[in-house]
């Protein structure tokens, strides 16, 4: 899919440039963009490193587990057909806790593990269960506490207050997660 989008942007751009006579701008633009993306990267890398450093400490000190204990009761309500002591529950809780802290690299393998555990409870192995769908929607509507990458990008672009979007993003993400839960729970009866 992203292949199509990428090619579309480039081909459409060049066709439009040919029609509108802006090929010179495009030629200069390609070179400028390629070098400005490296400048952007230099601004981003420090903040990314800072954040992953702090979060590695959180991982090592058991903060993910502590957060997991907090969200487990809530998750129990969302997955009525998964036994509370089933390993799938533990893996899902850990995955969501890691996602909240922005530990994407740690969250993904745990999430896949959770899917494998959920698959063991699946009577029809090629068809997603209600629990799998709910888990996936929770994952895609991610409740991330600190959106570190975009803060880094904002700082790298010369923002006077890069962290100003933490509060707005948290509120927006809470709304999107609630909407996702409402949608997945309503639609599961129709499919």
């Amino acid at each position, binding site marked *: 899919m992203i292949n199509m*989008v*990428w090619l579309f*942007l480039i081909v459409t*751009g060049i066709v*439009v*440039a040919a029609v*509108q006579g802006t*090929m010179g701008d495009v030629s200069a*633009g*390609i070179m400028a963009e*390629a070098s*400005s*993306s490296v400048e*952007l990267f230099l601004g981003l*890398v420090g903040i*990314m490193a*800072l*954040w*992953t*450093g*702090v979060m*590695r*400490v*959180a*991982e*090592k*000190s058991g*903060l993910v587990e502590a957060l997991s204990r907090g969200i487990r009761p809530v998750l129990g309500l969302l997955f009525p057909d998964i036994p509370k002591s089933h390993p799938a529950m533990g893996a899902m809780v850990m995955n969501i806790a890691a996602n909240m802290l922005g530990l994407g690299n740690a969250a993904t393998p745990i999430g896949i593990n959770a*899917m494998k555990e959920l*698959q063991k409870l699946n009577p029809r*192995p090629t068809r997603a269960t209600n629990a*799998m*769908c709910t888990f*996936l*929607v929770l*994952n895609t*509507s*991610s409740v991330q*506490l600190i*959106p570190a*990458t*975009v803060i880094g*990008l*904002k700082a790298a*672009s010369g923002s*006077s207050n*890069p962290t*100003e*979007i933490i509060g*707005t*993003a*948290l509120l*927006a*993400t809470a*709304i*999107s997660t609630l*909407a996702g839960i409402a949608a997945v729970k309503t*639609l*599961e009866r129709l*499919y």
Partner: protein
Amino acid sequence: MKGCIRVIAMRLLIEALSAFAVPLLVAFVLIHGYKKGVKVYEVFVEGAAEGIKTSVRILPYLIAILMAIGIFRSSGAMDILLVLLRIPAGLLGIPAEVMPLVLIRPLSGSGALGVVSEIFATYGPDSFAGRVAGTMMGSTETIFYTTALYFGAVGIRDTRHVLPSALMADMAGVVASVVVCRLIFG
């Protein structure tokens, strides 16, 4: 009057949250780690090295997507697209400038990051469009990749209601980003 006070109170709360979140979380994590016997300095450095690796991994994607968007914008095609998107954007109450992000966000995380930095560069990171774009980037996710990855790993082919539900959550996030930014940043 009451509604007005509520909006101001919420604005102050959100601003305080934004300002305090990073310092407090950093202090909390490090103190908690120290008390649990983690070698905080060494572990921080080790994690930071991982972050640099992640950034380096993002760089080629950033170059690819920024180059494509650069061609698209400098040719004038972006202006045409923005005019075409003005009507659907208006219906949803979304600034047309962030519509390209709305379109690419469910498809690709690195692509979306490229679009956000393009919006920051064109309109400014502290412009209304920049704030909405940043909020959106922090509150929505790449739906198709995550679905393919997680369901692919266990061989699920019938994904049932996942995509419609996830897209509804995404749209809610998009609209909420605009509404919240309008309330907080005015």
